[in-house]
């Protein structure tokens, strides 16, 4: 009897322990939703996950697949899903991209990820010719009414707002600079969100420069130099040309905030945080739908809430824990809808 009772007690204790661990785990992930802090000195290389689909996948993207920005965010996401896609990158010229898209479709690839807003016009012509192929296109909020196109876009203003808020905490209201590429797509959403986050926390001067190019590193470098002469105390920027601006931030000891991919590798000392696109969150759903026979017709977005957007904080920067927890509060408010950053 005693043995039974103690066994029952042990069982109850184990159950309670398991329950408390589960609750703690849930609580931990909830408080950490939307953020992650890297361990300083560790390799942040993306780990290949278990393969989620047997569909053949190809990617057509404008910049280099290792740009630590827009294109790499997609390649990294596919790697996390265990997929090794065929890749045609560096297709800044839309005609070249169009040729690649059509070529993959003719080769019988199941899913073609068309990673660039600018390819939309070409895709509208190509997709109807290949009704058995699924095209995943972004960043775009609409499928253009074509049945075999999925659209995707990041609510980049959300992470932008968080980055802007952290930047304003670091500068204490001092001026902040933004090196933007072209006033379009997720770049403008990120920058608007960043500006709103900084201004909401007392920064009156957020100087924004658009270079007019996604790829001109020299222009991004000189734009950042110009912002330094304005006296900015923190910098951010978007697109693959941002590496030039990160160099300027690094030279001048100015904190940098990244977006699209984790940009710690560009400056372990000055990169504070990066908003990272985890496309796998929506791609996984899309692949499932494709396998079930739905080849398109839906637009999906990355948000802080669905885990598609993650603000990754650089462990080497030693961000003040109060600021980090403050950022997590901001994220909770965005998820709850109490803060709606402008796109």
């Amino acid at each position, binding site marked *: 009897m005693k043995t039974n009772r103690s066994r029952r007690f042990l069982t109850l204790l184990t159950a309670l322990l398991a329950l408390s661990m589960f609750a703690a785990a849930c609580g931990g992930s909830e408080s950490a939703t939307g953020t992650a802090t890297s361990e300083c000195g560790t390799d942040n290389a993306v780990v290949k996950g278990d393969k989620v689909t047997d569909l053949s996948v190809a990617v057509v993207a404008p910049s280099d697949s290792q740009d630590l920005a827009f294109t790499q965010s997609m390649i990294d996401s596919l790697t996390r899903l265990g997929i090794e896609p065929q890749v045609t*990158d560096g297709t800044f010229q839309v005609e070249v991209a169009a040729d690649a898209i059509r070529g993959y479709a003719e080769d019988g690839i199941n899913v073609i990820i068309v990673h660039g807003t600018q390819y939309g016009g070409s895709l509208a012509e190509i997709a109807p010719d290949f009704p058995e192929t699924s095209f995943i296109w972004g960043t775009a909020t609409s499928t253009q009414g074509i049945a075999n196109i999925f659209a995707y876009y990041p609510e980049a203003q959300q992470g932008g707002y968080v980055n802007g808020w952290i930047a304003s905490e670091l500068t204490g209201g001092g001026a902040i600079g933004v090196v933007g590429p072209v*006033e379009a797509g997720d770049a403008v959403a990120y920058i608007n969100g960043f500006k709103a986050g900084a201004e909401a926390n007392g920064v009156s001067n957020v100087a924004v420069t658009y270079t007019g190019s996604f790829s001109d590193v020299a222009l991004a470098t000189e734009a950042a130099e*110009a912002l330094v002469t304005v006296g900015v105390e923190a910098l951010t920027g978007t697109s693959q040309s941002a590496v030039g601006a990160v*160099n300027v931030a690094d030279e001048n000891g100015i904190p940098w905030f990244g977006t699209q991919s984790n940009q710690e590798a560009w400056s372990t000392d000055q990169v504070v945080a990066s908003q990272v696109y985890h496309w796998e969150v929506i791609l996984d759903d899309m692949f499932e739908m494709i396998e079930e026979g739905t080849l398109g017709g839906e637009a999906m977005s990355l948000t802080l809430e669905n885990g598609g957007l993650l603000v990754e904080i650089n462990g080497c920067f030693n961000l003040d824990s109060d600021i980090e927890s403050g950022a997590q509060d901001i994220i909770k408010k965005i998820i709850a809808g109490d803060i709606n950053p402008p796109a």
Partner: protein
Amino acid sequence: MSEFFTLSVLIATFASAVRLAVPYLLAALGETIGQRSGVLNLGVDGVMLLSAFGAYYTVIETGSHLLGVGVGLLIGLFMGVVYAVVTVHLHAKQGISGIGIFLFGLGFSDLLSQELVGAIQPIKKLPSLAKLPFVGGIFEPLEDIKYIGELLFSHNLMTYVAFALVPIVTWMMNRTTFGLNIKAVGENPQAADSLGVSVERTRFFAILIGNTLAGLAGATLSLQLGVFQQNLTNGLGFIAVALVYFGAWRAKWVMAGAMLYGLVTATRLQWQARDIIPNSASDLAAMTPALITILALVLLAKRVRGPAALTKPFTRH
């Protein structure tokens, strides 16, 4: 607006213009020499890309900027040999050959970058004069002089090399037998040939010099920015070709064009940073340097005449 017209901001803008102008200047000077000999090279951008990657990768492997610049020069020289053989000896169409060189440079530099480097990694930029090993101490007090220091002594060595090349090229073209031969074969190769000037050899060496300078421009670009990425030049080589027309095939006017291009770009970036130009007009502002260049070309087109034998292959009859 008044904030812009302070001495410190004007000097920062001018320093930025100089940094932007240097790769254009080097490439355009090289193209000037080539075109004066009658050879158009539209492959400048491709040569620059190959040299930019070569220099960048050399610095990653060795940490030496000097070696990086050397490798950039050698790549330019090698591409010059290729282009000279194709256009001068094999008489291939210059326009098409140049485009071929450009496309090869664009693709091959990217391939090498992906295979040898992978993810973009920044490197140490070219140091300013004051930070040069051994001789830096001489320039340190000069760089500290208020305003003047930033304006004149804050740049890297390649900047001074580029501007020093302007009088050197001018002197070479006007005062040396080789320079006069270049101009002669670019104007009237048959006449030059009848006077005993080897048109093929003259053009060959003019192309070598031109491509070597394009290589130097590419190396300077990647080492000045401290990075290489796909299509780093972003069409810079083509603008350099346009600047040769802008400068009426004369080194000092080519320099003026490169500086104008740099100054307009630097000014619009400074104005955007100071909200003098609203962001809504940023796309228009981005076009300004190109618009000014086109306008200048239109105005100059009727007033200046290029080398008469430009793009025309030479065959001895």
